[in-house]
């Protein structure tokens, strides 16, 4: 099951690498991510999948990183146009052609 998390990173060298590395080492795959600059540091939105792994535990492990200001689980996909959004958009077009839909949206 996919979980969505939002990590507020301090403006520190290696903060992003450290956080992504931890997510992967703890048995999760990052399936989608977006990084944006904010007033103090960066905000990382990411979707993660970890079969049989506990997402709440992952957020606690991320939260203890010194580079992390705070971490939250997002209720829904944070993407303005995620995979499902893309599919809906394509479906709403007049003459949709499946070949025009990105492969991941067809799954």
């Amino acid at each position: 099951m996919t979980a969505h998390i939002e990590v507020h990173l301090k403006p520190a060298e290696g903060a992003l690498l450290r956080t992504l590395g931890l997510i992967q080492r703890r048995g999760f795959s990052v399936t989608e991510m977006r990084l944006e600059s904010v007033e103090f540091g960066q905000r990382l939105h990411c979707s993660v999948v970890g079969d049989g792994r506990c997402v709440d535990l992952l957020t606690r492990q991320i939260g203890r990183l010194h580079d992390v200001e705070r971490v939250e689980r997002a209720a829904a996909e944070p993407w303005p146009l995620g995979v499902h959004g893309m599919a809906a958009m394509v479906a709403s077009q007049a003459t949709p052609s499946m070949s025009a839909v990105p492969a991941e949206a067809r799954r």
Partner: protein
Amino acid sequence: MNSATTTARRPSKRTTHRGADLFVRCLRELGVDVVFGYPGGAIMPIYDALPQSGITHILTRHEQGAALAADGYARASNRVGVCMATSGPGATNLVTGLANSMLDSVPVVAITGQVPNALMGTDAFQEVDVFGMTLPVVKHSYIIRRAEDIPFVLAEAFHLAREGRPGPVLIDVPKDVTVVEVPPSLTLPHFPPRPATAVPAVMQAGQLMAGARRPLFYLGGGIELAACEGHIRELVDQTGFPFVATLKGLGAVPTDHPQAMGMLGMHGHQAANLAVQESDLLIVAGARFDDRATGKLDEFAPHARVVHLDGDAAEIGKLRRADIGLAGDLGSNLQALSAAWQSLPAPSIEPWLQRCRELRQRHAWRYDAPGEFIYAPALLKTLSERGHDRLTIACDVGQHQMWVAQHCRFRRPRTHLTSGGLGTMGYGLPAGMGAKLACPEETVVVVSGDGSIMMNIQELATLNRYRIDVRIVLLDNSSLGMVRQWQELFFAGNYSEIDLSDNPDFAALARVFGLQARSIDRRDQVEDAIDWLLDEPGPSLLHVRIDPRANVWPLVAPGCNNADMMEGDAR
């Protein structure tokens, strides 16, 4: 002789205050008195500033020795251990030591030289991305990009190494940062410790304890790290509950305490493992349900509810669900739990205490092994008794490590230094060296094996150079004993690459390095040899030949229930 040659040979007299001077001054102001390290190109400016600093530098013979010595220094003293090395191979040689400190939550600050900022990313000579390479094995890390950041980075690094769950912190220092001039007015910031408070769920934990019929404390290394052994001893005495300890929890409460059941786990005491399996409440303090302690997790303590106290919130519920999780300052929570306990009616647990006494009696260690060879458990018991509780024992990794845990007595915290998480062969000698420098009044004994000692044998030269009074007991079974034991039991006796029968003459080797040494191979030599080892000033080495077929018992096979313990012949 031309003037250029003359200039090159003349010692330069520095009048400026460079980044390196600031760096070393900050170390001193942070209370650093000993640094373990090895110099090289990129870190030379810091070494140039060291001699005037008042800091004692211990030149190890390998950077891994420096990292593990810093770990031993930190464990024995509860202060931050410091090691340093140059860029490239110097830095990579520190990595095993950092991983060792990370897995056992030891406060260490590692300083690495780095090529200048402008050369980073160009594959320069001795350039390696040690910051990236060590991300999984440090609590935090820095690259100092500007000399004026030195005081902040150092102060924060030392704070982070100790704060909360301790761990290693790496500081990578590009060379240009250390040679630029800096204003002498730069000062260290202060990082106050976080206020320690107890969590409200303590009362619920107390109620579970008051309602339990077969309660058991499960004590881990977090108690020593938090230096809250006084609080746990008080709680153990108040409640009268029996307790088990993990490998790293030994000594938090004296191992010969009347309520002690022994070490749990793969090579734990049978009484301890059975008590855990029968308990209805585990009060877990500073432990993390490591697989070597729990055996098959699904069948671990099947009847027990769990109260889990830990300094690290991410450990609560990681492997075993906690009915009550008390995250935060361990000492404060133990104190509050003690107060809650006193306000509640004590449970009637006499049948359980009787059962625990029976388990202890039935499974008491025996030292009457047949045969001619020296019996290692009996020798270690004798060593421990003759040490009269003034020993700090630093172990290596293997069979001897388990025998020390089983048969030596630990009445004081921070006197059993062992590589529990990473299982680093080669840990014992440098760790013992660090411990002796941290606590000169202690008698430090390294217990090693013939496999492990060779992993950092070069540090005998460090012992001799500084005449560090470490006594070494080398248990020699001419093989990689723990691997051999597993091949015997789980790989149908297919002995693969475990033979060390061509070992050097260890006593002669130690003498070449400048140590005193003796070698024994008969039981009637043991007492005299141990008296010699403990009474004569060191550094010294006692080489003990033991039965190559000796195994560590009991043993819970990997992936099995802790109640299913294998037993075999004592040799």
